């Protein structure tokens, strides 16, 4: 999932405009919460899974991409089954699976550049009202996508270094150096973004 932002490709889902895909995802997600019939929800999950498969991703790859969310969904199903009732479990599980498949299909077929461009355009009206700076907001999204994997990797390195020194694993012992490193990195990255000329000039669509 860390790697869940798509490559460019040529499947029908790849070719759909990003704005349309995001709007459809939002609509489907909302609609799913008004439906309680397990048969309809199972159908929705199957359709979403086929949509996901149509992006060229194999079932095995899908299973490994979504291992974590699917485990959580399964656990929720068990909790519902034990503490609530069968009917609740039978609607919660396919509903969340449908959502996870649909969301993954969108991220797999949308590159970061498309996502941030769309985000920036969608924020345009709010920017004109003076509420947000769309360029900055979309850069923040990009930075999260780019640096979250690096920070996860750093956490692993810190844990390994501590294990090598014979320290047991304690969350605080990882979090403190991780926060320090992340703050230092944030300062350097902020400098690099400035050095590369951000923010773009106001009329950045005009030819130079």
């Amino acid at each position, binding site marked *: 999932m860390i790697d869940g932002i798509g490559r460019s490709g040529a499947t029908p889902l790849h070719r759909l405009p990003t704005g349309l895909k995001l709007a459809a995802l939002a609509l489907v997600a909302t609609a799913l919460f008004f439906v309680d019939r397990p048969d309809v929800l199972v159908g929705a999950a199957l359709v979403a899974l086929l949509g996901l498969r149509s992006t060229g991703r194999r079932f095995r790859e899908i299973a490994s991409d979504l291992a974590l969310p699917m485990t959580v969904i399964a656990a929720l199903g068990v909790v519902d089954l034990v503490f609530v009732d069968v009917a609740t479990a039978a609607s919660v599980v396919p509903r969340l699976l449908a959502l996870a498949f649909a969301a993954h299909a969108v991220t797999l077929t949308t590159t970061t550049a498309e996502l941030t461009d769309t985000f920036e355009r969608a924020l345009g009206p709010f920017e004109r009202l003076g509420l947000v700076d769309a360029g900055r907001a979309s850069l923040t999204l990009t930075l999260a996508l780019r640096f979250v994997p690096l920070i996860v990797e750093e956490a692993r390195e810190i844990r390994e270094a501590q294990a090598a020194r014979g320290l047991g694993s304690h969350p605080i012992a990882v979090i403190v150096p991780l926060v320090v490193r992340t703050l230092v990195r944030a300062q350097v990255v902020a400098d690099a973004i400035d050095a590369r*000329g951000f923010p773009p000039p106001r009329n950045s669509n005009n030819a130079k």
Partner: protein
Amino acid sequence: MSVIVPAGAGRGPGDPPEPPRQTILFDAVAVAREGRVALDGVTLRLAEARIGIVGLNGSGKSTLLKTIIGLVAPSAGRVTVDGLDPSAQARAVRATTGLLFQNPDNQIVFPIVADDLAFGLKNHGWSKAETRERAQAALARLGIEALAARRIHELSGGEKQLVALAGLLAVAPKTLLFDEPTSQLDLRNRNRLARLMAGLPEQLIVVAHDLDLLADFERVLVLEDGRVVFDGAAAAAIACHRERAG
């Protein structure tokens, strides 16, 4: 493509293009960073094609590069880049002067190579149509056009360094500032980068602990505690640095 040469310009269409150069002036520049003196009364005129900077850790080398593009402002004195003030006219200076950071992971902003190059181009006002072409051309200059669609986190350290450099070259700078460019590279990638650097027509100002990298530079500065303690030919500067390092 036809080039019209004004009469008396003294340059024919067959002449190689003018090598990119800028004149960078430091006039009694001091920089204080959190109470410590990072640069202390530096006066320099930098106009050569190849300038090296050496010095021990904390001697002010990175700070000197950062003042050139206005990331750090002098607390006293004045810096100009071809007459522009990097603090007040940061956009203009950063369009002609690129800084390659020590760790390319901190410099590359987008997860995909081509998107990252597009980021810098967009910042400098290039249109979408020109962006693709310029990004491809910059990657091709470094022989890495095949990386355009790759994800940054799948690249090796050497490849990331080249992608970061391509991101600078794409915006057509006149001057490139390198901060310890080989410190994170293995020997093969180091040699590859050294060869590429030697072939760049741009003006280069290079901070390095890797002294061999600077051996044939026209001019090398030695920094110590924020002051320029030697300024001259590479061999003499490197000898001076070795002696002072002990």
